């Protein structure tokens, strides 16, 4: 009892003896935990990669251990001032002191090479951290990881599928470049090729029973032509329809929405038709029924109507209302195209002969606009609405034809006028020459 009293009486001393090491221990544990859980967030401007012992030591190693050091000049992380330990943890300072074991101390957060399935979470430590990412770019997105989790790739990754694509499969490992860098595998002109690395590989796709023709089909499409031949980096590639980090195959129910993200007017007309007719056209009519999907070919006027290239006859049969509408639409479009061509040819002819037809050409633009409008209005499946545009176009084209005829008449008048003027001029010259002869014969006075 006395002992216990003594103990209680001296309690503050004892508590102090116990508490101090405990607090120190807790602080150390906390620091170690923090180091393991949090990336070593060095702000831009911290030690340059080449200044760390990671690079100086690994540069003397071989193969896979040497490889990362070769990209210090082109990897976006290195270029932004981050270094090996910012992702992999560890203590480069200890390495600099000649202690590689201490440098690779897992207690100090060294992770080594992350397991493939954990790569998305590994990258997300920074890329999903708004506060951290803002140090580099206040506008940068931080939703890649959450999007990835909704993608087929992400879902399979979550299920433990080691083959499912992770960040490094698309972006690379130690030579990651900005998306805006044309050398990046995710730059618009390289996206399809990058996706095709897996999706065009029969061995890889066999496991998922997926087709491998998409990449080859896409390369033949109008979209690919615009991207590769036209150099239009806004032309759609894989991720524009499927999403990038949240890549999923668009379902039948949202194909129109996907196409409509660029072809807005056509999609709106299509939806209006659905609402107006109170029909659910989703299962039977979607963009890809007429236009295809990966191998979208340039639309032609022949797709409308009942000719050999018609897509209407895929659903409509002779004598049904849609079939008759298709015939009238085709006739109107072909009529407008023909008149437009005639007007252009006549104006070209007049212009080559020197008649100024600039204002007539400008007026003819109305016919071209209406042709575009009519072609778009085909997606409304509304014959009356379509015919209004087509007829406006035909009227404008007819005005162009008339202008071309007027220009040709003007040209004939000019030539006739010139002929008459030259006759008069030659007559005057002859008369003057005769007069000269007459005055020359006169003796000088």
């Amino acid at each position, binding site marked *: 009892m006395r002992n216990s009293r003594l103990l209680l009486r001296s309690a503050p001393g004892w508590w102090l003896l116990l508490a101090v090491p405990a607090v120190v221990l807790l602080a150390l544990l906390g620091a170690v935990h923090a180091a393991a859980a949090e990336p070593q967030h060095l702000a831009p401007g911290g030690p340059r990669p080449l200044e760390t012992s990671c690079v100086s030591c690994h540069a003397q190693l071989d193969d896979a251990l040497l490889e990362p050091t070769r990209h210090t000049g082109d990897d976006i992380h290195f270029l932004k001032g981050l270094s090996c330990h910012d992702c992999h943890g560890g203590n480069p300072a200890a390495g600099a002191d000649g202690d590689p074991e201490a440098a690779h101390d897992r207690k100090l957060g060294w992770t080594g090479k992350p397991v493939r399935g954990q790569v998305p979470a590994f990258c997300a430590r920074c890329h999903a951290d708004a506060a951290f990412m803002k140090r580099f770019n206040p506008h940068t997105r931080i939703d890649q990881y959450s999007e990835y989790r909704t993608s087929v790739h992400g879902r399979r990754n979550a299920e433990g599928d080691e083959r499912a694509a992770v960040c490094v499969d698309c972006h690379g490992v130690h030579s990651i470049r900005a998306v805006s860098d044309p050398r990046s595998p995710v730059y618009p002109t390289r996206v399809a090729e990058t996706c095709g690395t897996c999706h065009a590989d029969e061995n890889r796709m066999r496991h998922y029973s997926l087709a491998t023709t998409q990449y080859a089909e896409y390369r033949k499409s109008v979209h690919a032509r615009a991207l590769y031949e036209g150099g239009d980096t806004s032309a759609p590639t894989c991720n524009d329809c499927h999403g990038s980090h949240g890549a999923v195959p668009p379902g039948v129910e949202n194909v129109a929405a996907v196409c409509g993200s660029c072809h807005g007017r056509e999609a709106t007309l299509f939806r209006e038709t659905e609402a107006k007719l109170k029909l659910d056209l989703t299962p039977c009519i979607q963009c890809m029924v007429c236009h295809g999907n990966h191998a979208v070919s340039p639309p032609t006027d022949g797709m409308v109507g009942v000719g050999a290239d018609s897509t209407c006859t895929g659903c409509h049969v002779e004598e049904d209302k849609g079939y008759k509408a298709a015939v009238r639409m085709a006739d109107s479009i072909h009529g407008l195209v023909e008149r437009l061509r005639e007007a252009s040819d006549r104006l070209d002819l007049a212009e080559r002969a020197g008649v100024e037809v*600039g204002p007539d050409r400008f007026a003819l633009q109305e016919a071209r606009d209406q042709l575009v409008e009519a072609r778009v209005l085909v997606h409304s499946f509304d014959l009356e609405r379509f015919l209004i545009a087509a007829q406006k176009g035909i009227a404008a084209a007819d005005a162009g034809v008339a202008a071309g005829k007027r220009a040709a008449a003007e040209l004939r008048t000019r030539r006739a006028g010139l002929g008459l003027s030259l006759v008069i001029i030659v007559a005057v010259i002859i008369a003057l020459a005769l007069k000269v002869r007459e005055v020359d014969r006169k003796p000088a006075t």
Partner: protein
Amino acid sequence: MSPATPGPVPRLMAWIEERTGLSVLGELARKKRVPRHRHTFWYYLGGMTLFLFGIQVGTGILLLLYYRPSASEAFESVQFIMTRVPFGWLIRSIHSWSANLLVLAAFVHMFSVFFLKAYRKPRELTWLSGALLLFLMLAFGFSGYLLPWNTLAFFATQVGTQVAGAVPLVGPFMLRLLRGGDQVTGGTLTRFYGMHVAVLPALATVLVGAHLLLVQKHGMSVPPAVEKRRSESGGAPLSMPFFPNFLLRDLIGWVAALGILAALAALFPWELGTKADPFAPAPAGIRPEWYFAWMFQTLKLLPSHILGLEGEMLGVLGFGAGALMLLLVPFLDRAGEAPGRWDRLLLACGWAVVAFMAVMTLIVYLPAEG
């Protein structure tokens, strides 16, 4: 029987004569004689240049009725002239073609005077006023070229004014003076318009008047070779009355020129092109009017640096020196006093200049045609 009273026309003529004494001019025309020899043909070039200048004045005034000198309206107003104004296409095309023929006629006239040595004492000032008129015609061409405000004219003016900017010391000032700023803009168009329709015509009127007065005072020059041959043969100099013999011949040339202009305007109307877009990149194949092509080509062929100095600057200085030499030709030629080597050297220089201009112009045009 009382004497017959004169009709109203003779009375009006008498009334005018009493107040102006214009019959002196008629007397002068009647007395004036033009030498006849194997080079007489070249005398018609002066009259032809004057005729084409008259065409320019007449068609230019008509164009002024519709032309609007602003970047937003210039192209459209010329388009309006070409398409909506009755015979507007003809007037504009004749104005453009005639401008080119005028420069051609002026060059041929100048070279014919040079090679026939018609600038000799006492015609130094006639030559000087004629050479200045040639420069004025080039300035008319340069300033008029921009006025339709089409793509070709816009970029050619950009290049042309840039050349002026290469003049040492005053280049930057001249560039800004011509452009009305650092770039070719609507302000440049307004300046060029002012020069084309006010400043240059005023100067041209004075110079043409002086030139004609001097020609009238000194008469036509007979080439030294012709004079020498005649004095050796001892024959009397041949000549014809200016009025009507020479004037009728002049008229034949003018009417023929009118026919050529009509044919060119009807068969090859002057193109308008597309409206200038200052923000668009310069199209390929930009080149100035043919009469500046030789200078353009020379500057292109010059190395970027010659003896440490900028090649373009030296080229521009060279053209300036050439223009000065042209003005001083009568004072450089001492053939009158001592015909011989100096005389031949000057002639050789003249032919070298003609050959140089022809070759440089051909280099510009031949590849395009090929």
